């Protein structure tokens, strides 16, 4: 169908530039900077996107216009220093080589952060602390405001000198500009506070100074929220009013509309909607903004697929689509979509644990599906092997499949054994939890690749040492995964009504109304199982020795999970661990105090202690083959991200 992506691949004029298609990678923090500068790692990461065919790349999320912006926790680009200009020049040249427009985001985070990293005073419009960081800011004085406005203009000029096509002002995520807008934050009595016109003055001051500095031949865009989902905050009606006034003011070239805000934890989770949200869940926000402004609008929020993107455009919810995470999962998405190779696109599943949830913790981003992210310099090329080998991969989980994929791409002859009748391994369990269906896509993509590239797949074959050796392999990759760990807690192994969280998802739960879930793993295992059982109308109490249930869930995953657990009536108890089980009585001990309590009349006990490696085959093959790799959970039970990275790394060595 030649017209399938009619709008997606049509050009669009923005001020003096033409963007070649409607696909945008929006600004995000990568934590790849070196000493606050966007160096080689950052550049290589973006080059892949430019090569992949995206139309517009907005770099450097939240880069600081002034040292008082509390952003050291994310190691953002320091746009307040002229040192940055040569880095910017090298960066923009690389992007222009592939025909992409390149912009940079600049901002001041105001009160959003902690002052304990830079020991610079925290500043805000009023003395109101942010619920998220809980540090009370000092009030910006009139002269400080002038300094910061000037800093915005100078930072924008550095971006222009760096050869960029434009700059984006962030007035979203509750940064300084939208802190001024917020009626629940800005209680000033001077000209910058009061009614909306006054609260908008700071923002307009920034816009006017920036435009004055950069001139007419430079794109100046703005990122705003469509609804911050904060009590008494900037709801959709207010934001439409604000956007309309900015549009009438006439100095901004595009609107980039997110949902949510950085102010509270639930709102922060909505900013980068995870798989808990529907696809294109916030396109209604950009759609409403688009009705009241003349300028192009970027629709944002889980647009993970070109078909969805085209639909968003056709429905007029935006003029451009932000496919940021989709381009992390597969930088070559635009090219593949354009050529109709839709089944080759590695689709972002919105897991977030690999990208944004790492970034919020200040760790460099990656992608649970795409191991190359962050390692473009080392891994973006995949050279053919010098000597073609026979490779046997045992285990069709993500690790096994990734290893087989890379080995095959390098030219080896690959045979993959999987003992069950379908590929996917633990993904096939994970996807069964509520709102986790999208895990399916990981295995689907890998399987399509394996079949396309001609990996010989033997399903339903539990490979033994003999089967493996009968193939006369040069290399064996063992990726036999893990099984649920049953810790040596008295009575647990013998308990007839005790069941692992995995088996819960597989629907093997024994009958009974009262369920106790022991969450030691700290991830999605226990919360997923708990939700699964709540959906079966059971009474569930989750008990964890950690500070909170689902302790290790990332900042964008925990709030939606908590929202649902709450709505479904789960009880939670933190800091208690499982001590023993005997006939319907479950003994618990406080992790800190050591005192004990118990739960009686428990019908089902669900335990989640993570996995135990299945490494018999790896051990048995030791010394029997020339090259042997044990990757993923069969080496040590960890995450999907570990499995994919590890398999990728070792498969490259074959």
């Amino acid at each position, binding site marked *: 169908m*030649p*017209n399938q992506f*009619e*709008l997606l691949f*049509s*050009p*669009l004029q923005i001020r003096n530039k033409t963007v070649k298609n409607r696909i945008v990678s929006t600004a995000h923090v990568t934590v790849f900077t070196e000493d606050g500068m966007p160096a080689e790692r950052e550049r290589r990461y973006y080059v892949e996107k430019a090569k992949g065919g995206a139309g517009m790349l907005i770099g450097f999320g939240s880069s600081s216009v002034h040292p008082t912006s509390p952003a050291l926790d994310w190691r953002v680009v320091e746009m307040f220093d002229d040192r940055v200009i040569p880095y910017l020049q090298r960066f923009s040249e690389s992007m222009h080589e592939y025909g992409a427009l390149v912009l940079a985001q600049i901002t001041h985070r105001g009160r959003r952060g902690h002052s304990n990293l830079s020991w610079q005073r925290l500043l805000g419009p009023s003395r109101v602390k942010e619920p998220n960081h809980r540090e009370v800011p000092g009030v910006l004085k009139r002269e400080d405001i002038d300094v910061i406005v000037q800093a915005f203009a100078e930072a924008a000029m550095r971006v222009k000198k760096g050869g960029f096509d434009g700059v984006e002002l962030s007035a979203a995520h509750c940064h300084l500009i939208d802190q001024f807008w917020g009626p629940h934050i800005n209680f000033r009595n001077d000209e910058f506070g009061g009614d909306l016109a006054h609260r908008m003055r700071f923002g307009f001051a920034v816009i006017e100074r920036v435009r004055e500095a950069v001139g007419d031949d430079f794109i100046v865009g703005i990122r705003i929220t469509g*609804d*911050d*989902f*904060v*009590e008494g*905050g900037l*709801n*959709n*009606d*207010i934001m439409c009013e604000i956007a309309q006034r900015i549009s009438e003011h006439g100095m901004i070239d595009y609107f980039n509309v997110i*949902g949510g805000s950085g102010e509270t934890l*639930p*709102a922060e989770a*909505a900013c980068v909607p995870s798989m*808990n*949200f*529907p696809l294109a*869940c*916030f*396109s*209604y926000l950009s*759609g*409403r903004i*688009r*009705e009241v402004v003349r300028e192009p609008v970027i629709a944002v929020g889980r647009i993970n697929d070109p078909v969805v993107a085209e639909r968003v*455009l*056709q*429905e*007029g*919810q935006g*003029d451009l689509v932000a496919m940021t995470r989709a381009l992390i999962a597969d930088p070559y998405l635009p090219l593949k979509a354009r050529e109709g190779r839709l089944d080759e696109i590695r689709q972002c599943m919105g897991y977030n644990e690999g990208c944004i949830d790492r970034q919020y913790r200040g760790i460099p981003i990656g992608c649970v599906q795409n191991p190359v992210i962050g390692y473009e310099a080392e891994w973006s090329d995949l050279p053919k092997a010098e000597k073609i080998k026979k490779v046997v991969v045992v285990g069709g989980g993500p690790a096994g499949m990734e290893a087989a994929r890379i080995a095959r791409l390098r030219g080896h002859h690959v045979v993959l054994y999987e003992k069950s009748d379908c590929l996917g391994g633990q993904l096939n369990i994970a996807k069964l939890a509520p709102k986790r269906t999208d895990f399916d896509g990981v295995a689907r993509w890998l399987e399509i690749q394996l079949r396309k590239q001609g990996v010989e797949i033997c399903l339903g074959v539990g490979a033994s040492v003999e089967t493996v050796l009968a193939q006369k392999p040069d290399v064996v990759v063992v990726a036999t995964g893990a099984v649920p760990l049953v810790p040596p807690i008295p009575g647990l192994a013998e308990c007839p009504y005790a069941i692992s969280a995995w088996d819960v998802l597989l629907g093997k739960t024994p009958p009974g109304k009262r369920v106790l879930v022991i969450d030691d793993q700290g991830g999605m295992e226990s919360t997923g199982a708990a939700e699964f059982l709540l959906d079966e109308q059971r009474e569930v109490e989750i008990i964890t020795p950690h500070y909170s249930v689902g302790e290790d869930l990332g900042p964008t995953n925990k709030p*939606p999970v908590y*929202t*649902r657990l709450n*709505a479904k009536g789960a009880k939670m108890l933190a800091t208690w661990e499982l001590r023993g089980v005997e006939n319907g009585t479950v003994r618990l001990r406080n992790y800190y105090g050591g005192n004990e309590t118990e739960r009686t009349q428990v019908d089902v006990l669900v335990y989640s202690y993570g996995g135990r490696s299945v490494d018999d085959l790896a051990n048995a093959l030791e010394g029997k083959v020339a090259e042997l790799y044990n990757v993923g959970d069969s080496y040590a039970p960890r995450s999907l991200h570990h499995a994919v990275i590890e398999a990728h790394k070792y498969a490259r060595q074959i």
Partner: protein
Amino acid sequence: MKLAVCVKEVLDSRLPLQVVAQTGEVAHLGSERVALINPSDRAALEVSLILRDQNPGSRVEVFSACAAGEEDALYFAVARGADSVERLVQNGHLAGPPYTALLLANRFANEKFDLICCGDETLDNSSAMVGPLIAELLDYPQVTGVTKVRECSRGKLLAERSLDRGHRELVEMELPGVATFKIEAAEPRYVSVRRLEQARRREIAVRQLDIEPSKSRLPGWPGSEKKVPPRARVKKKFTPDANLPPAERVKMIMAGGMAPQQSSQSSAILEGDPDYLSEQLFRFLRHHEFV
């Protein structure tokens, strides 16, 4: 009544296809090349055959501007009962919808037909230009996207054409005129292999035309320019009330626009006969502005 039908042969898109790098043309992968009569052309042909049967003394003549070896659509037309078929050729290599229209319009300038029927668009080009261009070149009235012919007699065509969102428009056109048909305009009859093989034994008349495109009133071919689609209209979508508590708003979005307390009201299980059910379903979709 004299009816002209313009048809084109297209390749079966369900078979493996590939783009030949040198020519940019689409070709079948593998040895077996299977051509079809373009689906909407097929509907146009069927409509004409039905009109012919309703109006005694009528004729259906079928035309295709195609190269030798691409006459499959014409054979299909013979097998379906067309009175005559003709292949139009032009000296020199000319291709593309405007030239096809030019050729056909030239042919119809010499011999008057009451109604010229075309398919709405083709599987391969989807330009939907040929019918409208013929009408322009001949200064005939036209109606595009016909989904149903209500009446065609006494120099008038009364037809329904499709609009957005499943709406229909009733239009009346003076004849002679050009009509382009949607696939749903008529359910085409089946042609048995025996009839098809009988048809293939027929020799197809060829008419040589010599047209100088530069001297004709041929509109510019916009294919070379980058087409910038117009700004799409905003479609109203579910938007939670801004006065609701933020947690409720987020829950509504997470649930795909359905708040838990709303869902019991906005979903219902219906039982009944298919007519009733489809009616109710359509009302529901209309009510929620899905269509």
